[in-house]
């Protein structure tokens, strides 16, 4: 049971890692002028909700299996995702808005955010891996 929980959260975390890497690659493409703002933002906006769902899934899994420490670790990231999504002004075309992305250093701050998330997901990956192995051994 424990092992199943950790295996699924490990898989979830892998998906989140791939997603962060995808965000970083797309944003750096925009920085280097390989793609334009419109296509970059439409690509990224497509994956905002799946990322939110995946993160929420991981958080709930930890809550459901009563691993409090990991749950509390995941909670800020999940709530930040939800906050970011909800706080988009009505006239904007999603979290990544092509008309605003080059203003006020938004590109840099999105890049920083993606990097931090990548680091966080890598950390969680190793936590889940370790816990999964522990759980498998103890079964």
């Amino acid at each position, binding site marked *: 049971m424990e092992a199943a929980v950790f295996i699924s959260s490990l898989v979830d975390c892998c998906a989140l890692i791939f997603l962060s890497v995808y965000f970083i*690659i*797309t944003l750096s*493409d*925009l*920085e*280097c*002028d*390989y*793609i*334009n*703002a*419109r*296509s970059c933002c439409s690509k990224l906006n497509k994956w905002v909700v799946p990322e939110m769902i995946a993160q929420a899934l991981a958080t709930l899994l930890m809550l459901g299996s009563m691993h409090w420490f990991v749950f509390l670790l995941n909670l800020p990231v999940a709530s930040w995702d939800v906050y970011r999504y909800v706080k988009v*002004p*009505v*006239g*904007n*075309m999603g979290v990544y808005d*092509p*008309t605003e*992305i*080059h*203003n*006020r*250093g938004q*590109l840099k701050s999105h890049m920083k955010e993606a990097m931090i998330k990548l680091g966080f997901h890598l950390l969680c990956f190793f936590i889940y891996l370790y816990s999964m192995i522990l759980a498998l051994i103890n079964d």
Partner: protein
Amino acid sequence: TLTGGDSSSTTTGSASPVPNSYESLEGGGYSDLAAPPAGVPAKQAPPFGYNYPTVHPAYQQNPAPKPDPSPSHGGYNPPGYQPYSQPFPSLSELSSALGGLGGVSEQEAETLRPVNLLQERNILPPKRAPPPEPNLSNDLRKVNCSPDTFRCTLTNIPQTQALLNKARLPLGLLLHPFRDLTQLPVITSNTIVRCRSCRTYINPFVSFLDQRRWKCNLCYRVNDVPDEFMYNPVTRSYGEPHKRPEVQNSTVEFIASSDYMLRPPQPAVYLFLLDVSHNAVESGYLNVFCQSLLDNLEKLPGDTRTHIGFVTFDSTVHFYNLQEGLSQPQMLVVSDIDDVFIPTHDSLLVNLKESKELVKDLLNALPGMFTHTRETQSALGPALQAAYKLMSPTGGRVSVFQTQLPTLGAGHLQSREDPNLRSSTKNVLHLGPATDFYKKLALDCSGQQIGVDLFLLSSQYSDLASLACVSKYSAGSVFYYPSFHHVHNPAQTQKFQKDLQRYLTRKIGFEAVMRIRCTKGLSIHTFHGNFFVRSTDLLSLANVNPDSGFAVQMSIEESLADTSLACFQAALLYTSSKGKRRIRVHTLCLPVVSQLSEVFAGADIQAISCLLANMAIDRSISSSLSDARDALVNAVVDCLTAYRANGSNIQPSGLIAPAALRLFPLYVLALLKQKALRTGTSTRLDERVFSMCELKSQPLQQIMRMVHPDLYRIDNMTEQAALHLNDSVIPQPPLLQLTAEKLTREGAFLLDCGSVMYLWVGKGCNETFIRDVLGFQNYASLPSNMTEIPELQTTYSERTRAFISWLLESRTFLPAFHVVKDDASTKTSFFQHLVEDRTESAFSYYEFLLHIQQQMSK
């Protein structure tokens, strides 16, 4: 990684692959510097012009000679100037305070002269101050870009970001790149010389190492001079590349070859989208529009390929078949607004020359066609979608005329304004768009090189905040005529007519892109204006017109310590209305300084105020209006605190500002009282949003007149110090401060606000003036809604009219004119512009100074 879609490879060599996007056309920014070719160091450590013995003497940085005192300096001691006891009474003390810099120029000492704002009552110079001159050698100053085109907030660029932060002033550029110019050197040569790495165009501030090599002033790369460039067509001489016109002028226009075209240059295509609902017909704008267009049909910019089309809409969308050969225009109605389609494939946008008669017939018939309409709904969204489909193949300009809230179909809007909250002192809501429909449409249009201009002629709330998006991101312009009615509001009708005259005949550029490059170390982080930022530094402008201004904010990423000059270049690539591809290049050069006092000495207060206005509007939309207002006040407080901290004196009383910044609190107070940013006074939401749009898209002079209008007394103008131009004598009355104290009952005063002018006549004004200039016997017989000055044959009248026409000389949009007598609304508008006075919700100028002083002492 190359991703699909709009991918392009950045090139560093001169042989480039076939371009498939504008990024590669215009050339890259510093991302191209990633791999410099071997053997040529990409970064030269020695400073500009140093170490190269054969550099042309013109390019050596000489210490700035003493400038002649300019006429405006005479106005620095206005009557009433009180000498104050200051700790800097002599120049030598000043120079010691400036860090022991030798050779402090007289000009710089003048701009740093401390002014006690609380004591000095008359801080306005008698004429509008010219922009500050950068501290460059005479040769560089002569070729530098005109400040009307390119202006920086700080004419002395700080060396490091830390120094800039210490000064607490924003660093940015204000551009007016497509301004109407009387003199423009056009370069017809086949080769356009550009730097190989950063793609900067050759400009007057490059250095020639010897006759065969030149060094880029933005990235310091050494380039070769091509053979064709060695020959100078103007002087017919060989071997003097620095005498060529590209290197002698900072504003040039190149004729672009086919390398600069993604497709053959497009013809001028004009589409007019007209609201014909009941409301629209009631307001009567159709008559004015059709008449205006008929009068100006010949003068529409274009050539034999110009196309024109019309689409009208109410609850359905109507197209007009204008094919040559038809006996009269044929109307095609599409009533399926959920999925608008184009009824026929051609002959909706027709060649103007061939179908001219039909177009004229249509324009004559159009007002009459809808007089009995009962349609009250407006399907603007579907009409715009139809316009987009119609214009996608070619691009061009769409002019939308709307008189009410769009209520039907895609993009329909709700009424969001609460009239009770118009005077609220708390937050103003709904400053941003309600839906992303118009933004998305604008981005689609921008991608197809379609620019959308919006004329809003409504009397009720029409959610301009959402509608304006369609113009903002497609590089269009927004015009607003509140309470437009052809009978009840003749002043607005006149203004609409005059504006249309200019709008239809002004120069236009199509499928344009603009790139702004700066010296290595500076980078642009925020853009203001009507355009779409496609990628870093590349602005996509579907249409470019001579009346829009842009602003950018910069930051200093790397220290500029090893260079003494910072340069900026704006390159605008566009298709002229005659189908010629052109590149207009402006280059500005400014000195780099390392002392805080020099940064203050070079501050351009008008540019700073405009940039702050742009920033405040961004802040009020992204966060809240009160945040923006607080930020504006803090900008003044921080700046004056920084100045005080830098000076070595302790001056506990009084509010000291350097002379360069003495108008800063006044301009900020005026900004706080603008319709865009004011609270506590009843402001309709649409008017507020329109004022914001204006502040973000007008050129600098227009914004300054809007924010701090010019007040003159005109009933007693004399010939003293008058200008003598072309046989006419133009009197030069001094500028007055914007306070009711300066108004007297015995005088008549002219307030020039840019888009509107007021002539306030005092009750006791001498009757000679009223009779000779206004044509009425006495004050009582003046009508309450006069909108122009009659042409009478008296000296008084000639003098006044000469003065007013001199004021309007270089204006593009003629202002509306009001004689203020008893009419309540014009009186209120007039007095709202007197920014130094106290109102029930805002400070007077003196109170504002005290408030600043109080904040500074916290």
